[in-house]
Each structure stands twice: as structure tokens, then as C-alpha cells.
């Protein structure tokens, strides 16, 4: 077969074109560290890589949500702890008032302290986080507890009325998994989960209880005050029940957060296996291509040196 000059140059040119475009691709790959920068680089990896990236991004969102849920629960835990302390102090006062050594005047000052305790309890119940009421359900801009204008003990024994709603604020912490991160103030402070305006059986209206104790102390009704001790215990259990619920939710969030962080690491590894270049492989390939290109160039220069004209 006759080899013409055009054959030689055409073949060399196409070979050099191809090698240098491959070399260019390898250079881009090693410079970016990505082997998947456009769909045609590896069409079968596109779908798993994009889905992995979406899930990583989603995991970021869930982690942020959980962090915000946790800080919310933290604040609530503090509030509930304070409510517990107030009730414990109230119980102490009731126990103390039973002591015959105290006079009516002493009980009057105890009544004053109890009034303070009730006011502190109201502050806790109306506490705000970022300017939003914590125990108001969805109605976070409405002050949940306000004085009942119709308060008149035997007829209407509710000193405080609930102005919030019973919305349960849920956060999504992983796809399809939602947890409630707020506490219904009405069942916490008024013992009224069904919202009928009266405490449910076995529950107490903490404000009414504190008011009764205060009144009892003021009127030096020792027996009446001591009788409320059981109710104070119930109230304390009512609050600590919610507090342990908050603790449980928080520990569930923490577990989920750690799991989500682990999943995210796995997903990042998965994504990397689809879109990141193996640097050692890329560099080796690049060196091979450089050599091939050099060889092609040196062949070209040899061809131009060799001519039949030199021998004629």
C-alpha cells in the first residue's frame, strides 16, 4: 500500500488532535478534582449523584431544624424547672404554715410570699422566646395567661384565663418524622387538656391552687391550707411530667441529630464516589497522554527531516 504525504500528515494530525483533547480533559479533571462536571461525562452517575446531593442538602436542613428544636426545648426545660422550684417553695410554705409556732401575722407574710410565687409562676407561664410566647400554642403573639375579670372564687374559681390555642408545634426531623417541640400551656398550668375550662380529673389549675393557698394563709385557715398539700404534689407531678417529656424529646432529637450527621457523612462519601476524580489515576493518565503527545510530536519532526530529495 502506497503511503502518500497527505496520508501521513492527516493521520498524525488527527492523532495529535485526539491526544491533546484527551490531555486537556485530564488536565481539567485533575484541576477541578471532579470527574463528573457535565452529564455526558458519565450519564449513569448523574441520577445517583444528584439524588445524593439533594439528600445531603436536605440533611443540612434537618440538622438546622433539630438545632432550633433543641434550643427551644432547652428554654422550655429551664422554664419548667423554674415552675417546679416555685411549686416546691409553695409546698414548703404550706408545710411551714402547719407549724403551730407561727402566728397569724407570720402566715400573712407567708401569704405575701405565696403571692410573689404566683406572680413568678405567671411570668414563667407568659415567658417569651425571641419575642414569642412559649406556652401559647400557635398563637405565639397572644399573651397566653391573663387575669380572669370574672374571678370570684366560689362562682368562678379560675384566676387566670388561657388566651392561646392548643396547636402542637411540630418540626420535621427526618423525612416523614415529626416531633412536637412545644407544650400546651393550658394543660400544663390549668390542667385542662380538653379545653372545657375546668381542670381534667386528676389535674389541677396551678393558679387557682396557689390562689386558694394564699387566701387560706391570709385567713389563717390552717386546716384548709394543709389540705392543699396533696394538690400541690399533684401540681408538681403535672409539671415534672411535662419536663420529662421535654427531656425525652430532646434526647430523641440528639440521637436523630447524631444519626443524621452520620448519614450525611456516608452520603458525602457516596457522592464523592460518583463525582470526584481519582487523583492518582487521573495524574497517571495525564502523564501517559503527555508522553503520547510528545511521541507524536517527535515523529512529526522526524518525518519532516526525512525526504527522498536528500538522496537524489
Amino acid at each position, binding site marked *: 500500500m502506497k503511503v502518500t504525504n497527505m*496520508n501521513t500528515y492527516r493521520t498524525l494530525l488527527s492523532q495529535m488532535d485526539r491526544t491533546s483533547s484527551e490531555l486537556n480533559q485530564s488536565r481539567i479533571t485533575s484541576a477541578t478534582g471532579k470527574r463528573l462536571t457535565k452529564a*455526558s*461525562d458519565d450519564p449513569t452517575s448523574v441520577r445517583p449523584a444528584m439524588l445524593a446531593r439533594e439528600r445531603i*442538602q436536605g440533611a443540612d*436542613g434537618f440538622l438546622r431544624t433539630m438545632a432550633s428544636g433543641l434550643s427551644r426545648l432547652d428554654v422550655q426545660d429551664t422554664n419548667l424547672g423554674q415552675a417546679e422550684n416555685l411549686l416546691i417553695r409553695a409546698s414548703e410554705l404550706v408545710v411551714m404554715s402547719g407549724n403551730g409556732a407561727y402566728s397569724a401575722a407570720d402566715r400573712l407574710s407567708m401569704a405575701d410570699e405565696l403571692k410573689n410565687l404566683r406572680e413568678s409562676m405567671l411570668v414563667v407561664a407568659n415567658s417569651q422566646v425571641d419575642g414569642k410566647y412559649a406556652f401559647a400554642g400557635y398563637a405565639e403573639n397572644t399573651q397566653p395567661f391573663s387575669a380572669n375579670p370574672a374571678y370570684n372564687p366560689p362562682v368562678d374559681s379560675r384566676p387566670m384565663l388561657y388566651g392561646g390555642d392548643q*396547636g402542637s*408545634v411540630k418540626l420535621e426531623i427526618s423525612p416523614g418524622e415529626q416531633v412536637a417541640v412545644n407544650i400546651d400551656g393550658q394543660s400544663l398550668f390549668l390542667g385542662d387538656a380538653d379545653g372545657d375550662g375546668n381542670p381534667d380529673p386528676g389535674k389541677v389549675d396551678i393558679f387557682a391552687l396557689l390562689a386558694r393557698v394564699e387566701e387560706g394563709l391570709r385567713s389563717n385557715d390552717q386546716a384548709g391550707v394543709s389540705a392543699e398539700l396533696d394538690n400541690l404534689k399533684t401540681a408538681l407531678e403535672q409539671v415534672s411530667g411535662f419536663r420529662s417529656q421535654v427531656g425525652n424529646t430532646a434526647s430523641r432529637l440528639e440521637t436523630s441529630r447524631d444519626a443524621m450527621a452520620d448519614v450525611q457523612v456516608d452520603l458525602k462519601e457516596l457522592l464523592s464516589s460518583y463525582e470526584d476524580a481519582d487523583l492518582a489515576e487521573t495524574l497517571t493518565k495525564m502523564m501517559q497522554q503527555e508522553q503520547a503527545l510528545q511521541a507524536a510530536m517527535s515523529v512529526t519532526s522526524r518525518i519532516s527531516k526525512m525526504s527522498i530529495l536528500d538522496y537524489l
Partner: protein
Amino acid sequence: MGGLTSALNIGKTSLLTSQKTIEVTGNNIANVNTPGYSRQIPILSSYPTVQINGQSFGTGVKIDQVMRNHDTFLQRQLGERSATAGEADARSMPLTQVEQVISISESSIAGEISRFFDSWQELSTDPSNSALRNQVLQRAQTLSGNFNSTIRELSSAQEDINVTLESKVEAVNFKLKEIATLNQRIASLETKGQGALSDRDRRDQLVTELSSSLGVSYFEGDNGMVSLQLPGGHTLVQDSTAMSLETQRVDGNVQFSLRAPSGGSVALIPGNFGGEFRGLMSVRDSHIPGVVADLDKLAYNLLNEVNTLHQSGSGLDGVSGRDFFTPLAVEAGAASQIAVGLTQGNQLAAGTGSAAGDNRNALNLAALSSKKVIGGTETFTGFYANLASRVGIDVQQNSLTQMGSQDSLLQLQNRRDSSAGVSLEEEMINLIMFQKGFEASAKLLSTVDEMMDSLLSLKR
């Protein structure tokens, strides 16, 4: 005396023939780099012998004809292969452009969709926060803007193809006319018994170029003229008559018709073409519209799913039943028209009720991102990823076809050159050969001359 004169005559034919062969060789060398040039070979034959006293004597040499090395089979293959290579080459640019538009990076439409739903998720943690509400609106605006601009870029890719097609028509028409002229020349030269070698080379070259751009088929008649046809069977050149391609814009797209010199005109459909034209039109008429239809489907589903959920919720202002995106009646064109209908952050229905802390609807909207809502089988991201991967497969396959057809085209060109091309080595050796022939003829003449001298000196 008759003997010596005829020897002189033989020397003369030899000298002239050697000169001619050197000219032919020189012409070959001169055209070593001419594309499509076929190597020419002088065909030598001896003059008829004369009978003297019952014996035959030769009377010298002549050039019968100058032929060209030519292989019709290879030439046809070259044409067919050029059509395939032309089609793949032409598809490559616009396909790459489509691939760039359907990006797989984090700023792709899929990324924007994820970010949009993430912003709902973030809003669910603090539903009355106006910064988060505005963030949802902004993300939605970026998302719909991304849809709109993607469609714009795809239609500008279509427009680029239209402009490319229009710009190629003039060159094609020029080539068709040139082939008709060459047909005429070749026929008239060859009926006079003259060769039309370089005209035929030029015509072969033009036919190969038209194969690449139009995928033409051709056959050569007895008169040496070629007829050229489109793959659809429409005649482009018949003997010395050339049709011309004309373009019209129909709905913004370039359509072709074929006009005969007599004035009649036939409309052509994209299926009538081959080569580059077919490649370009297939991207314009089937590939890009397919991608646009998928994006419309994605946008339409997204718009409806989000609107349906959004209507079931209520804004901070207590108004419920609002659409989030401006509602659209039909799927076609959804990606180019999708737009956010809300203007104020407090119109966002994050809650089922209007209470500030109600985040139920935001949770429902955020959960849309992982729901299989398109046809009940695909999430939004999954649907887009499938689209991107299909585009990638098309680009990859086309570049494989392109590389394969370029390889085989290269092989064919090399094969053609090894039979019809000019090799400098071969020409140099021929040059030496013909030069020696020339030197020997000159020597013959000078010998005869000396002999005549000696003959004439006898009389002195």
C-alpha cells in the same frame, strides 16, 4: 538515408514523450497538497510498426492519453461516510449547548428546587419570621427565573441552528451550480475526445462536500454528467441544470424548498435531508422540543402541587385559598411562564390557620420535595436527574458516533490517497526514470547526428 531519418524521428518522439511525462510528473508534484486531486498517469504506447523487406520496425513512442488514478467504489464510500460524519459533527455543537443549559451543578434547576423546599422547611421552624418568609419568596423567584432562562437559552440554541442553516444555504447553492457547470464542461470536452481530469476531480470533491452537508446520492450518466439527489429523492442537479435551495421562516423556524430554474418550487421536509442539515434539524425539531416538554412537565407539576397545598393554608393576614405561583391552564409552555404570584411575605400560607406559630402547611410543603409526585413515580429532583442523564447519554452517543465516523472517514481518505493520491517518493522515482529516458533519447539523437556527419563527410 531513410533509415537514419527514421532513427531521427524515433529520437524526436522519444524526446517529446519524455518531456511530456516529466510535465505530468511535475503536475502531480505540484498538486501534492491539493484536496481531491487524483494522481495523473501518462499512458505510453509505441507507434505502429512499418514493414520493410518483410520485417517490422518500430517507429517511436507516443502518449496515448493521460489518465487519473480513480476508484469509484472508494469515492462512493467516501461520500456515504462523509454524510454520517457530517451529521454527527453538526449535532455535536448544539447538543453540547443543550447539555450546558441542563446543568447538573448545584445551581441547576434541581438545586433551586431543593433550595426552595429547604426554605419552607426552615420557615417551619419559625413560621412568623418575616426574613424566612421573604427567603421563601426569593428562592421561589430564583427558581421560576431559572426555569424561564433555561427555556430562553434552549430557544436561542434553536435560533442559532436556524441561523447556521440559513448561512449554509448559499454555499450549497453555489456548489450545486458549479457541479452543473462542470457537468456541461466535462461532457463537451469528453465528446471531443479530450480529457477533463481536473474538472472531474473538482466535481468529485464538490459531491463529497455536498454529501457531508446534505447527504446527497449521485449517479453518473453515459454522457459523463452526474445527477445529484437528496436522500428524499428530490433531484438537485440534472445534467447541466441546478436547482437551488430556498429558506422561509415558518413559526420562527427555517423551512426549505427547492426551486427549479424554470420557476417551480417544491417544499422540503426535514426528513428529505441527510448530513449536516439532518443533524442540525434533528436537534432543533426533536431533541430541544423534547427537553422543553420535560421542563414544562416539571414546572407544571411543581406549580400545581405547590398551589394545591398552598391554597389549603392561610396567610398571616388570615386570607386562605391563595395560589403561590400564578396558575396556568395548560402544561405546554409552563416552564417559560412559571412565575410567583405572591408579593408579600405575610401572604405565605405557612399555617393551616392564620395563627403566627402555625407551621403545619409549611411542613406539608417542605415534605413535597421527597414525594413522588410526577406521574406518581418520580420526585422533582429525580425527574430532572433523569432528564439530565438522557441529555448526557445523547451527547455521549453522538460523540462516539462522531469519533467513529471520523476514524472511518480518515481510513477511507487514506485508502483513497494510497490509490489515487500523490506520493512524493513515487513521483521522484518516476522523475528519475523519465529523466533517464530523456537523456537516452538525447544521446540517441546525438549519435544519429554523428552518424549523419560521418555519412556526409564521405563525399569530401
